[in-house]
């Protein structure tokens, strides 16, 4: 089993820079998710690891081997594509064995490998069908079977679930996770879906505009986002970002004002220390929707702070209800219990757990 190391990887198409000096090191057996908005360079990075794309500058190592100039077929990797990329004229069985045929594996071994992998993915009844006769979920399984049968060192997944419907996507997500726990191989997985990233990854690399913004465990990414981009990209609904000013009135607070008057969010101790003596400074206050509730919506902790705002929209989801209001000219989403009766246009008393609040520099977006 091998890890993957990317060193100062640059990719330029003419004058456009797609990847701007990526440095990442993945441990063997790790499930790494590359996540980011479309155009952030995540798929390009995956293709560079696969050898399907050349890099302009830098080095790629799989294990200890430098593979920068090694063609894809000699990298000991397997890949699952977004559109499955099954060979349309071949049966499922021939799709799975094509790689072994190309490598001259003898027939008996091919048959055994197909039987094993078909059993693992429950696709035995499909082996003699053509891809056109399969449903989306079945095609997905066949694509995974084709990758698994190679028994490579490293698996690459390029948005494999994005063509599936919502229910199937959740099922396959669990299945991929189970599969990884079972085979314990290194995986690099590209997605734009932050929930997929959170649920699957052992570590997440959040990418934006050719840079890696943060590379850490899902918990760390969620609880300690490095900057505004990571904070607002990860989480659904996204973190509320409010523009405010540090004020000092017997304790530091962030003041957010609009036509309904100012709201002063008192800063608890660790946060207050990070901006000590900076009264008047512009900051962004990040509040996750689940930290804003109705009264008594959360455990009694020391740093609760209450304020009132009119409700603009109510979105029930079942387990929770999203209340949307505005504060300081920004939209604010709160996640409350369904039994917290609220009415559109009426004022509602919100309660924020300030211990979970994040502060960001207004200009650089870096976390304070």
């Amino acid at each position, binding site marked *: 089993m091998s890890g993957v190391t990317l060193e100062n990887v640059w990719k330029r198409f003419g004058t456009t820079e797609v990847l701007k000096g990526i440095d990442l090191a993945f441990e063997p057996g790790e499930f790494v998710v590359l996540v980011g908005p479309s155009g952030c360079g995540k798929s390009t990075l995956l293709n560079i690891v696969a050898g399907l794309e050349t890099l302009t500058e830098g080095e790629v190592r799989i294990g200890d081997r430098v593979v920068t100039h090694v*063609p*894809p077929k000699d990298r000991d990797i397997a890949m699952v594509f977004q559109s499955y990329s099954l060979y*349309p004229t071949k049966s499922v069985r021939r799709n799975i064995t094509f790689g072994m045929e190309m490598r001259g594996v003898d027939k008996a071994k091919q048959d055994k490998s197909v039987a094993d992998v078909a059993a693992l993915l429950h696709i035995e009844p499909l082996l003699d069908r053509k891809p056109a006769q399969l449903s989306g979920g079945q095609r997905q399984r066949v694509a995974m079977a084709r990758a698994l049968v190679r028994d490579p060192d490293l698996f690459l997944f390029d948005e494999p679930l994005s063509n599936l419907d919502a229910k199937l996507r959740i099922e396959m997500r669990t299945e991929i996770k189970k599969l990884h726990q079972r085979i314990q191989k290194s995986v690099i997985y590209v997605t734009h879906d932050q929930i997929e990233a959170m649920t699957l990854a052992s570590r997440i690399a959040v990418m934006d505009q050719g840079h890696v913004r943060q590379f850490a465990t899902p918990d760390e990414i969620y609880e300690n986002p490095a900057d505004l981009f990571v904070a607002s990209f990860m989480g659904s609904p996204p973190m509320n970002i409010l523009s405010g000013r540090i004020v000092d009135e017997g304790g530091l607070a962030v003041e957010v004002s609009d036509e309904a008057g100012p709201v002063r969010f008192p800063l608890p101790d660790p946060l207050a220390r990070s901006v000590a003596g900076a009264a008047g400074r512009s900051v962004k206050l990040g509040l996750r929707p689940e930290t804003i509730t109705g009264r008594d919506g959360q455990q009694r902790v020391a740093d609760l702070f209450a304020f009132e705002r009119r409700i603009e929209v109510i979105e029930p989801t079942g387990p929770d209800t999203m209340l949307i209001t505005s504060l300081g000219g920004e939209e604010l989403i709160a996640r409350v219990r369904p039994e917290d009766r609220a009415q559109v246009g009426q004022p509602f008393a919100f309660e924020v757990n300030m211990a979970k609040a994040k502060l960001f520099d207004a200009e650089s977006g870096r976390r304070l």
Partner: protein
Amino acid sequence: MSGATDGIVRASGAGSRFLRILLFALLILFALYYLLPFFVMLATSLKTLDEIRTGSLISLPSSLNLQPWVEAWSGACVGVRCDGLQPYFWNSVLIAIPGVAISTFLGAIAGYALTKWRFRGANIIFALMLFGAFIPFQVVLLPMARTLGFLGIAGTLAGLILVHVVYGLAFTTLFFRNFFVSVPDALVHAAKLDGAGFFAIFFRILVPMAIPTFGITVIWQFTQIWNDFLFGVAFTVGDSNPVTVALNNVVNTSTGVKQYNVDMAAAIIAALPTLLVYVVAGRYFLRGLAAGAVKG
């Protein structure tokens, strides 16, 4: 073809029924209009010369007289040689089969390379090839004659095959390029990861997918090469003439009585193979023309 539109609700009522009847009447009228010349040819080829002289153009032959067909196939005189169209027909077969095969194969490879193994300047090369499809025949006559002379194959079947291959390449490449450009690159990527190289990907993955494109390309090329007259008359001499040139020589002979029935039979013989190819491969032609309109 059918099925998808069968269930669409149509307007009903007297007005629309009248319009439908009118539509079919027009279609039948045009169908007759197009079939009439062929009917005249067929009827004339089966008549005796007397009957042609005395009867009307569209009357049916009084009896099936196959003699003109035998005459056209193996007895009519082309210049001083009186073996009928037969030897020239085989010339055309010997030209068309390798001509179609080579130009189709090269077009497939070129279309594949231009779309799936993109290289610097691929677009320019494709634009130049596309330009080749618009060059009129007569423009290339002289340069081609010089080239064939230089290669030492002027006036031979091989020379004419080369001309057809070169001229057809623009079209065959265009057909295949347009098909392969619709095949997702990810499929080629998957095959590369599976260990397949340039030719393995082409023969094992893409050729089976491109069968309908092969169908329309073969029809197109066969029709072009078989029906060609100008290249045939310019680049072959006497015994190596294709059937179209021989047909002209049979019909335009200035000696003896004009044998309309033999001329008609000869013309039908010369046209028969393209008709046959269309019937055999025609469904691919339609499928190929419609391909790309809707993603399957």
